[in-house]
């Protein structure tokens, strides 16, 4: 008889189950809204960059400026230039692809960081690493599809480009933009239609790296060669690695 008193009717079961599922759904929604990675769309500014590869001369000035501005350890790079030659003499062309963190709108590094040390500033959408929280697990280094992150051997935390946040918050340009000889890098607020970067984007056809991953990078390229933009898997498939 005691068993029958404890038993739960089907209707009651579904009612309780529904309440719990509903509660969990509402909680998940609230957490999602509050989460910085997904609140990026509500930010007032959206810093981004356009790199016109037609203007890049491959001088590596941006790489040097970045290293000196951010004290990047020897052998590591927050910003670098990939260089490729294509064709046979006399039809040869040289291609440059300046690289840096894309500060993606849906950043895999941010989503996979276990401690939340990687975060996005709500007011401008820049992705940062909090060195006081980062445990140095390198999950973000592996997660970044662009190879833009590394474990800083001095701080033992993840490191990456943050558009020289200490400069842009003072109204300056990132160090790489200032150092660019050919004025290939245009930086600014993508949400501001009057900014240089927005106007450049409006007047040029642009590409983004690994668009298939839907990470929505905020670094856009003008006239980049398709072969330099991603990893060259066909070469490895053919068994040639050099």
């Amino acid at each position, binding site marked *: 008889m005691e068993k029958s008193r404890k038993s739960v009717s089907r209707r009651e079961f579904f009612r309780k189950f529904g309440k719990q599922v509903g509660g969990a759904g509402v909680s998940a929604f609230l*957490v999602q809204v509050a*989460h910085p*990675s997904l609140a990026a769309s509500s930010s007032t500014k959206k810093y981004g960059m356009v790199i016109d590869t037609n203007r890049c001369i*491959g001088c590596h000035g941006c790489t040097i400026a970045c290293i000196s501005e951010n004290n990047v350890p020897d052998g590591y*790079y927050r910003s*670098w*230039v*990939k*260089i*490729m*030659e*294509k*064709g*046979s003499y006399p039809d040869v062309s*040289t291609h440059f692809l300046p*690289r840096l963190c894309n500060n993606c709108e849906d950043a*895999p590094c*941010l*989503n*996979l*960081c*276990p*401690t*939340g*040390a990687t975060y996005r500033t709500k007011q401008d959408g820049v992705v940062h690493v909090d060195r006081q*929280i*980062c*445990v*140095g*697990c*390198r*999950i973000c*280094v*592996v*997660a*970044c*599809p*662009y*190879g833009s992150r*590394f*474990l800083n051997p001095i*701080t*033992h*935390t*993840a490191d990456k480009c943050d558009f020289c946040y200490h400069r842009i918050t003072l109204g300056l340009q990132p160090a790489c933009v200032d150092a660019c000889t050919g004025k290939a890098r245009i930086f600014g607020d993508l949400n501001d239609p009057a900014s240089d970067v927005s106007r450049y984007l409006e007047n040029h056809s642009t590409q983004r790296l*690994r668009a298939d*991953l839907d*990470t929505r990078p905020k670094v856009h390229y003008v006239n980049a060669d398709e*072969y330099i933009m*991603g*990893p*060259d*898997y*066909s*070469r*490895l*498939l053919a*068994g040639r*690695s*050099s």
Partner: protein
Amino acid sequence: MNENIQYIYFIQHGVALGYLIAWYLWLISLAEGTHIVAHLSWLYYRTEDYRPLEKVGTFQPFIILALVPLFLVVDLGHPERFYTMFYNWNWTSPVAYGVYIISLCMISYAIHSYYLFRPELIHRARQKGPLQGLYQLAVFNQVESGDIREIRKRQERRERFWAGVSLLFSFLGLIYLGILLSSFKGRVMWHSSVMVFIFFSFGACSGSAFLILLTQLKNSLAHTPPKALAEQQRYLSEFGIILKYSLVAQAGVFFVYFVLLQYTGIGGKLASQVFFTGPRAFQFWFFQVAIGLILPFVLVLYKKMRENVVVSCIAAVAAMAGTLFGCVNIFIGGQMLPMTNFRWEHLQPEPAKMTFGIITMVLMFVVFLITYKILPYENIEVREGASS
């Protein structure tokens, strides 16, 4: 692609997460798999004779899970901040869940083991001897009355409850490992729906193999009554059958995985090439397929071979080695695929970390041996008052 392409300047990124984390993943799948096989077998047999094997399949995974976080901690840039992962929590990261799942799994194994050993521990705590104090401490000085059978009956509900909880966390642990790797959407080798099933197959293979190996080790080190020994050999032979079908399942899962990779574009084709002809080819064909799949399958194919102690132990070691290399191949191989350039990424040798990993594994083995000498794995069928 154009044949005449020369890369003048690029950055090589290397393999960021090395062998320690690959071992970490394997040891977790081993512990979870061992407990799942041990406990599901209990649900199948439900006999008192099976209890010693369930003890092995619960307490040894606990030892592994208690020591395995060391692999993760040593690999961190800031090992001293490890504990902050419990409260600096990012809900979109599988690792954040994993820290809790593995911790809770370890706790549930500990409690389940406690209830499994408790009747025999109480019995030993009543008997005078050099370790009486230790056994009394192990049961928190609550030496209940009644014989072992009665104590078992009294605690049966609690014991089965914790068995269920630990089984749930074991499944969650394997699901976590699969989801962890498949959540890296830039890594074509890991970002696969089959990853969870790969870890399930690893768990089933290494779990049944480990259980065979540990029980044989227990029987050689601890005194086992001849009747119980004969009964346990029957169970071990049946674990051999589980191992056989787990190996078939693992081969099937890998076949599906490679078929899916073929339909994942050029990246997927290259990912399968990492195994077939690429940098992990030798480890794949020799250790994972020949040693880890074919050899143990042949060794446990026939009943007479399964019943042979030496043959079953060789099959178990081979199957475990196969899953270890499978785990390492997927984990390291997945990072060898370049993200931005045209060369395989290289893994820098880490001798200090490797030494630490080997020492920790030896430590685990030593702890296993010590527990076999101290803890009462075998059933003690003695009536109150007739024990001494």
